Structure formats: structure tokens, C-alpha cells
């Protein structure tokens, strides 16, 4: 085993890139779940974002426009989930899984002609001075724009939830939708908007995969990233900063075990690839055993105004 072939700085840098798609999807889902809705269709939304982002980027030669269209498309698709669960009062688990299927199928259909193509990708930013710093340069300041945008989104969500009235109302709706309704807040409207925001974020995450991380379009390329994002939300107790740490941790473990595999580690490859999931389970158990999970009080329950 040749551990010296692993460059710790590159490792840490690639951690952020690996984590970004999951982080984007997870932070969007945090907003959705804080409003009281469980959206299991994140995988379908991500892959839709991936294919739309790729297709648009190829056709317009602009990854930026690709990202924007990915977000819009995923938000639109999530609207179908929103209508079904909030207005048609359908079961959230079933509808979320249906959304995953629709997303996977739709993206396969749309993406067929684009297989094998290359798309314009995002360049790594070259920030004056900062990028040239010895260790921190490549580590923190030489990523593409989306990595920074994802962190900015986390900061924005954290601030909005904690310090603005909009965030307060959203949290109230998620905690106790009957009390919120009694106080005059429009529960269904707020949830629909939250779902669309979550959709847009998942779309961005998916587009990052197809435009930057891989970068290519293949059917089913999200390979479970959406499910990981869902786990990270619980892992992070529905708090934005913890979700960031969780995403980076997961990204880190993934990247580490890949590097260990490449370096010819003594541990069999398969056990290494299991490790991120086992660790996630362990943390989930630990959090739930502690008792106070911090889950929004109305999470997953349908709201029907009964006067």
C-alpha cells in the first residue's frame, strides 16, 4: 500500500467538490422538511437538473445558463409533487417515490441524444492573491463558482431561517401546522413555495454532477446521491451548518476511500465503499437514541384545514 501517493491537500480540495452536489440537494431539502414536508423525490429532481443543465449548456455553450435552467426545470417538476401532496392530499412517501421514478425516466428520455457529448464546464476560479496562497490556495480558493455558491446558499438559508420573519413563519408551519393556521398563516402556500425552492436546489446539485464533477451525461448518473442528501438532512438535525458538515464529511469519506482504493489499501475495496453508509447509519442511531431529534413537529403529515 502506497499511502504516499495520496496528497492530503488535493484530497481535502476534492472533498469539497465531491460534497457540493449533495450539499445543494440537502440544503434545499432542509427548507422543505423544515416546512413540514418529506420529499423523497430528491433523486428524481437531481437527475432532472443534471439532464436539463447538460442539454441546455450544450445547446447554448453556457454552463451558467445550463445551471439556471436546471434549477427552473427541477422547481417545475417539484411543483407536481407539491400539488399532489398539498392539494390532492396524497401520501408523501408514495408521491416522493413516484417523483423519483418520473425524474429518472424523464431524464433518460430527454438525455438520450446527449450521451457521449462533452459540454462546456465551469472553470476553476482564479481569485487574485487568494488562489496563490501556499496551502489554503488550492484547498479553499481555487474551486469553481458553484462550490462557493453552494456555501453561500447555506449561509443564506441559515440566516433566513434564524433571523427573518419569512424563516420564522416557515419554521412555525413545520412545527405545528394547526397552530400556524389558527394564527392566520397560509400553510399550503408556504409549503408549495418551500418545495419549489428545494426542487431548484436539487436541480442545481444534479447539474453540478453533469457539468462539473463528472462531467458528462449518462442515464442514472446521480447513483443515489439524492438518497444520501436525505440522510444528511437527518444527520444534520435539520440545521444548515450541520448539514454542511455532514455533506463534507460524507464527501470526505467517499473521496478518502476512493483514494485508499487507488493507493492499494489492505482493506478490501468493498468494505471501504460500504463505510460511508455504515457511518451514516451509526450517526442516525446515535442521534435518535439521544432523544431530541429536532425533527419538525409536523413533518410528513398532511394538512387539511379543519375549522
Amino acid at each position, binding site marked *: 500500500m502506497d499511502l504516499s501517493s495520496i496528497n492530503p491537500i488535493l484530497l481535502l480540495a476534492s472533498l469539497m467538490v465531491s460534497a457540493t452536489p449533495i450539499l445543494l440537494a440537502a440544503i434545499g431539502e432542509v427548507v422543505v422538511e423544515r416546512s413540514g414536508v418529506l420529499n423523497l423525490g430528491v433523486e428524481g429532481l437531481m437527475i432532472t437538473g443534471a439532464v436539463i443543465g447538460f442539454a441546455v449548456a450544450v445547446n447554448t455553450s453556457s454552463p451558467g445558463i445550463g445551471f439556471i435552467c436546471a434549477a427552473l426545470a427541477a422547481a417545475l417538476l417539484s411543483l407536481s409533487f407539491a400539488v399532489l401532496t398539498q392539494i390532492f392530499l396524497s401520501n408523501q412517501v408514495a408521491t416522493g417515490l413516484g417523483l423519483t421514478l418520473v425524474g429518472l425516466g424523464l431524464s433518460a428520455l430527454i438525455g438520450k441524444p446527449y450521451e457521449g457529448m462533452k459540454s462546456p464546464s465551469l472553470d476553476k476560479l482564479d481569485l487574485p492573491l487568494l488562489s496563490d496562497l501556499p496551502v489554503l490556495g488550492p484547498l479553499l480558493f481555487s474551486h469553481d463558482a458553484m462550490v462557493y455558491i453552494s456555501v453561500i446558499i447555506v449561509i443564506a438559508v441559515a440566516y433566513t431561517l434564524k433571523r427573518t420573519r419569512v424563516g420564522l413563519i416557515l419554521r412555525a408551519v413545520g412545527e405545528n401546522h394547526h397552530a400556524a393556521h389558527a394564527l392566520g*398563516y397560509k400553510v399550503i402556500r408556504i409549503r408549495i413555495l418551500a418545495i419549489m425552492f428545494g426542487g431548484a436546489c436539487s436541480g442545481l446539485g444534479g447539474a453540478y454532477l453533469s457539468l462539473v464533477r463528472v462531467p458528462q451525461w449518462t442515464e442514472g448518473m446521480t447513483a443515489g446521491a439524492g438518497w444520501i442528501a436525505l440522510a444528511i438532512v437527518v444527520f444534520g438535525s435539520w440545521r444548515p451548518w450541520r448539514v454542511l458538515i455532514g455533506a463534507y464529511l460524507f464527501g470526505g469519506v467517499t473521496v478518502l476511500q476512493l483514494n485508499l482504493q487507488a493507493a492499494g489499501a489492505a482493506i478490501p475495496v468493498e468494505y471501504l465503499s460500504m463505510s460511508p453508509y455504515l457511518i451514516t447509519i451509526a450517526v442516525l442511531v446515535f442521534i435518535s437514541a439521544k432523544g431530541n431529534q429536532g425533527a419538525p413537529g409536523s413533518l410528513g403529515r398532511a394538512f387539511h384545514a379543519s375549522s
Partner: protein
Amino acid sequence: MTDVLMEIRGLSKSYPGVVANDDVSFDIGQHEIHALLGENGAGKSTLVKMIYGLVRPDQGAMTLNGQAFAPSEPKVARSQGVGMVFQHFSLFDALNVGENIALGMESILPQRDLAQRIREVSQAYGLPLDPNRIVGSLSAGERQRVEIIRCLLQNPKLLIMDEPTSVLTPQEVQTLFATLRKLKSEGTSILYISHKLEEIRSLCDTATILRRGKKVAGCTPSDTSAAALAEMMVGASFKAPQKKQHELGKTRLSVKALTLAGNGSGKSPISDLSFEIAAGEILGIGGIAGNGQEELLAALSGEALSAPQMCQLNGENIGHLGPNARRTLGLLCAPEERLGHAAAPNMSLIENALLTGALRKKLIKNGFLNWSSAEKFAKTIIDEFDVRTPGTANTAASLSGGNLQKFVIGREVLQDPDVLVVNQPTWGVDAAAAAAIRQSLLDLAAKGAAILIISQDLDELIEISDRFCALYEGRLSQIKKTAGLTIEDIGLMMGSATAEATP
């Protein structure tokens, strides 16, 4: 400048099948604490909901400071200076005090300023609150403070309080009274809904008494005795008990110092309850909802477990046994909530008959269900208890309240229990069905069963129980024989401001 803050003239409101308020008129003066008295079902909540804008009156009008007042929703009422503290709080447990208050307010204050104002106002009125504390960690009294401060920050001219002391300790009650008196001196009037006669006598300037939707009297509480108030509230129309006097058998149910730990959500736990019921006897426990009735039923049904010796059936310890073990031994229960607890709303009457009758009616063999026997059982219940329904296949939710209650009670009665515990047997039930239910309970007792009836309907309890006591804040008052009980006794037992230890 008149002395009157709010004029209420001829307010009426009806719902299908029931007249909630019938031509109610009274005045609330400036600088006045005005009590609104009446039993459950008298129409108090509907009346204040109209004042607060939650419900539109069918007829009648109101004025506030001389101007017409007809709020279309609570927001409008709040903006015109009417605030309300509900009996059941609209609070968010996971959020802190400041956030909860901000959610209930119209104008948006920056967080820091709001926190400052909360501290000031709460200190000033003797209800100190820390804006950063999580509401879930507050006691019931502290939660009420949050609701009150939420109203006070909007400078109300009229503050409506619905059963405010039902969740407070005696100490907290005194603090609240001091606050209310201070508010009154500063120009806010208070509309104070309560049953607690002694409290009203010591706090309120005037009182309006409702009974069955109508205003029956207005008076000055400090000049009126508690007995007179109780009489006006309850009405002196008691039917003499029509029960056959029969021999009482041995003790069937024995409860000793029954105590349950609370779950901290504002519901009163029950502590140190002790009573015995003999075969053929009916014990009535009165009291306003929220004083531990649900918990008592759960402790007796087996949904909540206690120490084994706290509940004894025919001499055997059962406190640690679950519902089905207790059913087998002969203890049956009928909870208050018909749909969702006593019966599954979307399941058929046959299935609901099976729900509790499976063991005693032998509807299961080797794990397999005997549907034809279950159907027969359901049919028997329907026939003997006159349940109006097209058939046994109909869902429980399709039945009217009265018919479903007849079914629920009938289901338990037809299983020949040794002990039957019923919580609110005739709540929301029409008069005919209620009479039938009561008669069936009397008949069951005559056959030798011991019956415990928990109810908010005093008439009912006086009519059919042999002995009576009241449940207040999770404790029982003295148990007295019903015969010879005066209205004054009852009112005082139910409205005592301090808990009496059972003898």
C-alpha cells in the same frame, strides 16, 4: 364619553341541530373585569368567538367605544384592540418565547427590540419571561404568560381570557390576578370566562351568566354568594334520581393513590387518586375537561400503566396489565373521543365491534377472526341500542354523534363487564339518545356491575350516580353520597380554588 367599552345586543348563532347563542345582550364597561359564567355547552365559547371575529353572528350587533364593531377575522379584531388568550394555546414548542410572540403579532419588530419589549412588559406586569427560552421547556403557567404577553404587546382595550386558571397553581393564580388588576387600572377591560366561583367572586366586578345559550342573569359577584352563583349557572331543576335502590355487592374496583407522571404538555397528570366502587354502584366524577379525566381513563383502561397495586379488580392487582388483559378480567372502558379512539372512523361497524369485543365475545379462534359472529354482535348492538344506521357495513364516521355513542356504549355494555368506566357518556349527544344511554348504564348497575362515570354534565351525574366527587387538577375532592347533595356543595367541589386532599 360613555362608561361602556363594548355593547353587545341580541347576538345569536345557530349550528345545525343546536342553538349556541340566543339573543344575548350585555355591556362591558371601561376599567372593568367582567365574568362570563356558565356550564359547558352554555354558549360561552361561541359568544367570545363572535367577539374575536372567528365566527360570524347570525343576528345581533356589537359596538366598541361607540363605533360599530363586527370583525371579519381575528386580525381585524386585534387591530381594533381586542385580544384573546385561548384555553388551548397556539404555541410552537420548538421555538423560543420571542419567536412565538412575534408569530402572533401583526407589526414586525426587529428581534432585539422585541426581546427588549418582552422583558419590559413581562416584568412590569409581574409575569417575567425570558425571550430566549424554548417554549417546550416552559410550565403550563409560563406558557400562558407567553400567550398573555403576546396580547399585551398589542395594547388591547379588551382582553378576553378563556378559563385562564385551569392550568395554574394557586400561586400562579394570585400572580395572574395581580396582573389583571394592574391592567384594569391602566384602562384595559377584561372579559373573564370561568367556572371557578370563588375566583370570580374575588376578582370580577360584574358577571353575566349564560345557560343553554341564553343570558339568564347579570350580577355583582362580590355581592352574591357562591351558592347563588352556582344555582344560577346550573339551574335548580334537578330530577329526583329514578334508580331502584338495590343491595350493593362486594368491591369490584379499587384504586389506591393512583398517580401518573405528567408528560409536560400542559395536561394535568393525576396524583394520589383513591376510590372504591362496589358491585351495583355508580360513582360519578365531575369536573371540567382538562383536569385529568383522559389520564384517569387511560390508567384504568390499561393504555397507561401504573404500579400494580394502584388498581385492583376484584382484589387482583392490575395496574401493570394492558388493555386486553384487563378486558379478559372484566374491566371495560369507553373513552371520550368517539372517532379515532373508541372507534376507527373509516372502518365498518362490524370491525369496530371486533375492536374491543374480540375477547369477551369469543370472536377470535386460533388467531382467525369469526366475521359472522362479529357481524351478529354488531347487529345485536345496533338493535338493542337503537343505533340508526343503514347497516353493519357502514363506517363509524357515517354515524351521527348520538348514534355512534350509543354503539360505543352498547358495545361495552353487551360484553357483561364487572366494571365499566365511561368518560363523557353523553357529550354532544341528542337528548333522546342521552336518556337511553343513561338508562342502559342504570340497568347495567342493577345487574351487578360497578360503574364509573366521568362527566362534565352535572345533571346527568346527579341523576344516576350513587356517590359523587369532583376531579380538579388531577386530584379528587371528597366523595359524598349523591342523595342529599346540595347545589352549593357541588359548585364548591367543582370550583374549589385549592385542592382538597381526599380523606
